[in-house]
């Protein structure tokens, strides 16, 4: 049986940072398990940058200001001790990344370049052109190769095994040959990324961002925190949800409905298309809901029209956006308007981390880092440039803490073999099972339900309907089967299991969203339009039960900054 002292599940920025730290301990056996090759992870898609108050660009910036910006951005739902830790660690981690070889863009004097980003008081975001996540991900992977970290590439975890509130191991499928294995591990770090794929095509995330680690931990009894908070971006491409950045509107693009109107005049007559993100997103959705878009259901859209800018300006000023539209949407913005709609971007919620210094959950030996975790540092809304930071700041100590934990544990006699045999029988049965449903139908219905009813606009009645619909889909999911009995690279089996994860997470999002009767950060309720600190300045915790999530609440850690109204 495969056995590790520290097993890391997921090899994006957070997982690799933890692996790199853990692999420094030569007395401890570390393994990294990932369903895709490490460099395929979604961290690579982060373009903008990573925040740290290096004060390279503006000497008056400081970790303290960064802390306050983040607390404010979180709409006071972030834990201030954890945020402070993150912002003070940030410069050290950036220098560490640079020392590992990350090719950051440079100022003329050779120091790391920084640029302004939304919600930040100073130009604080360190970057490498428009590929910051990509170079960080690749650099961390390279360093792991250097340290001879053991990778289980293209392995997929299906279960977390806990006994007596202690991690024992995981059940996983080796995708390359279809073998089902129990993997023994003293410490397990989940770093599996976000859950924005509950909205399926209407999101900016990788296809694999199916919240695996969250669903696995949730099913094993670890609560999910603040699941109701999902960040949306106003403009994604119609077919794929791929982000069309603010640049297109910044250069003077128009948002047009099917009446040919520049509809932002109704919602933001001064700023028009350059209004704040959430306002633009809500405006587009309103147009579509009221029948002034094109297309149907999840495929409905409005136009982002650049044609009046002319071919020359588009080619000179927006070449990347133009190429993006041609490649992914088949539309040349010089000739046609771009079909767009808001798109889910980031999930603030995740596996409940109890100790930000170690990233350990309530179960001994189970850790969670990155987007799959909720510390919480992002609270009700995440600032641009803080997600990559989250990965490296918390990934590192989690790796060290997992090593310490594993060292403190001696071998035990827990019978993992029995679990392995059971899991193998279950998977074999699945492969033989005949499908009476179509995976895409269930997935699209889930996505549409979540989009229409637990998306940008939220209101009690539709959300209750959504919960019912998800329950129905979960029943129908029982009739579904992978439909492929093959052993090697059976990705139909993986997609099948992922959909199960998403359904559980969708339910947790919907239930926590109904219960949060206020508007805070990314959670915007029509029936409760203001923030209610008296009743809801608290984290939601969703516990798995077969009947659906049971929700409890926990305290928000407030140290220096008392909640104030959030204006920009």
């Amino acid at each position, binding site marked *: 049986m495969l056995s590790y002292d520290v097993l890391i599940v997921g090899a994006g920025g957070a997982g690799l940072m933890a692996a790199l730290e853990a692999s420094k301990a030569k007395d401890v056996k570390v393994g990294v398990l990932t369903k895709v090759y490490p460099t395929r992870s979604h961290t690579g898609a982060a373009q903008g940058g990573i925040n740290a108050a290096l004060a390279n660009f503006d000497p008056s910036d400081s970790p303290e200001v960064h802390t306050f910006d983040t607390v404010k951005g979180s709409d006071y739902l972030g834990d201030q001790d954890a945020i402070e830790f993150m912002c003070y660690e940030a410069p050290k981690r950036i220098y560490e990344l640079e020392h590992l070889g990350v090719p*950051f863009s440079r100022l003329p004097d050779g120091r790391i370049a920084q640029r302004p980003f939304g919600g930040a008081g100073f130009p604080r975001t360190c970057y490498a052109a428009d590929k910051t996540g*990509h170079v960080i991900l690749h650099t961390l992977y390279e360093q792991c*190769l250097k340290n001879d970290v053991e990778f289980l590439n293209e392995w997929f975890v299906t279960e977390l095994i806990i006994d007596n509130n202690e991690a024992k191991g995981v059940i996983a499928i080796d995708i390359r040959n279809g073998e089902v294995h129990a993997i023994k591990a003293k410490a397990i770090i989940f770093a599996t990324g976000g859950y924005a794929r509950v909205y399926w095509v209407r999101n900016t995330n*990788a296809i694999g961002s199916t919240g695996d680690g969250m669903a696995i931990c949730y099913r094993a009894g670890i609560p999910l925190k603040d699941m109701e908070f999902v960040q949306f971006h106003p403009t994604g491409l119609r077919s794929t949800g791929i982000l069309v950045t603010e640049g297109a509107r910044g250069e003077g693009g128009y948002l047009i409905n099917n009446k040919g109107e520049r509809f932002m005049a109704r919602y933001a007559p001064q700023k028009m298309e350059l209004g704040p993100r959430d306002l633009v997103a809500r405006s587009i959705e309103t147009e579509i809901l009221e029948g002034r878009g094109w297309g149907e259901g999840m495929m409905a859209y409005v136009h982002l029209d650049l044609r009046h800018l002319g071919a020359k300006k588009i080619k000179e000023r927006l070449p990347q956006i133009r190429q993006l539209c041609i490649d992914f949407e088949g539309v040349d913005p010089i000739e046609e308007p771009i079909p767009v709609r808001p798109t889910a971007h980031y999930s603030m919620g995740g596996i409940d981390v109890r100790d930000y210094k170690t990233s350990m959950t309530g179960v001994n030996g189970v850790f969670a880092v990155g987007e799959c975790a909720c510390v919480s540092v992002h609270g009700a809304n995440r600032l641009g440039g803080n997600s990559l930071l989250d990965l490296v700041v918390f990934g590192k100590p989690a790796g060290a803490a997992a090593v310490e934990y594993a060292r403190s544990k001696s071998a035990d006699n827990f019978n993992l073999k029995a679990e392995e045999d059971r899991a193998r029988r279950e998977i074999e049965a699945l492969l033989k099972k005949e499908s009476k449903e179509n995976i895409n139908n269930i997935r699209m219905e889930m996505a549409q339900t979540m989009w229409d009813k637990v998306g940008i606009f939220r209101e009690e009645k539709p959300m209750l309907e959504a919960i019912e619909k998800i329950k129905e889909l979960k029943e129908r999911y029982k009739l579904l089967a992978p439909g492929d009995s093959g052993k090697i690279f059976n990705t139909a089996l993986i997609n099948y299991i992922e959909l199960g994860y998403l359904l559980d997470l969708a339910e947790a999002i919907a239930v926590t969203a109904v219960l949060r009767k206020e508007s805070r950060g990314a959670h915007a309720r029509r029936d409760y339009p203001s923030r209610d600190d008296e009743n809801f300045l608290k984290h939601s915790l969703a516990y798995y039960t077969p009947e659906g999530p049971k929700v409890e609440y926990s305290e928000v850690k407030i140290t220096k900054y008392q909640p104030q109204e959030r204006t920009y």
Partner: protein
Amino acid sequence: MEKFKLKVFRYDPTKDDKPYYQTYELPVEKGMTVLAALFKAKEEQDSSISFRYNCRAAICGSCAVRINGHATLACKVQVKHMLEKYNTDTLVIEPTGNIKPLKDLVYDMDWVIDKLKKIQPWFIPKEEPPADGKEYRQDPYDHHKIDFASDCILCNSCMSDCNALKANKDFLGPMVISKAYRFIADSRDGAKRERLETVLKDFNLEWCVRCMECTTRCPKEVQPYENIIRTRIIAAEEGFKSPGEIHAEIFEQDIYNRGLLNEMLLPMRQEGLLGAAKRAPFGIRMFFKGKVNIADFFGGHKVKRHDEVKKIMDKAKEVKKNIKIKLISDVHTPYEDKRKSKQGG
């Protein structure tokens, strides 16, 4: 609605003796990428098709396949554009070339990673970090030199269509050499010579045939071919003597001394007397075919106005010291845009 055929390479080594093709008919939808078409075929017609994917936004590098013979990211191309490009109703989807397929469109990535490891694809600092714990300083021009090379997503599109790799699987390949360049050219890196020695082992770096497939295929404008050349330039600057370096010297001398290359004396100068002897059958063959101007064996003639050439070459060596040549950018402008003067542009 208009339909097209998606003809997919199928192979399951646990079931099939040899690969075969299976064709799925699908509607041509606006906005549909080839990756989306593969998913549609998988989810509606045949769940057993295996292919890799993740970001569907051309950054993770998972989904490189060959479409009608040429490698590209399935997520980055439109079905409609591909049908127009090849003027066809059929898209043939095959795994990347030059790398062993494991199942259907899934190829052996470990083989590539093993190759990568040979060049130590990790940063090895030249010196200890600054005492204040802050960043290594790097001049923006030095950063610029590795900017495009660090865009590589390891998608293997270039490896797939590399002609040298097609002829010899021991070639490191454009992706690997380009990765080596990313470190060799990094002003902070301390293993430049070691890395150069690795890529120059058996003159592997010079197996590249300059076919330009890699740069043409690359979906991220990494410029693998150009990076191979940049690596050779650095090797020359570092004083490594290789066949390519000797070759370049001969060219330079010939241009300096007469303007044109003397092809007949090339073998002897390139490989010495022994080499020339080896090439004798070739030379004799060329001579009897009437291809050879006998004067060339005695140095040949000079181009007109040759005095200009010497002046320019001498001056160039001097001016070169003060110029920082910027790397080319925008290497993917569609070909239609390029040839202007002839077609009224």
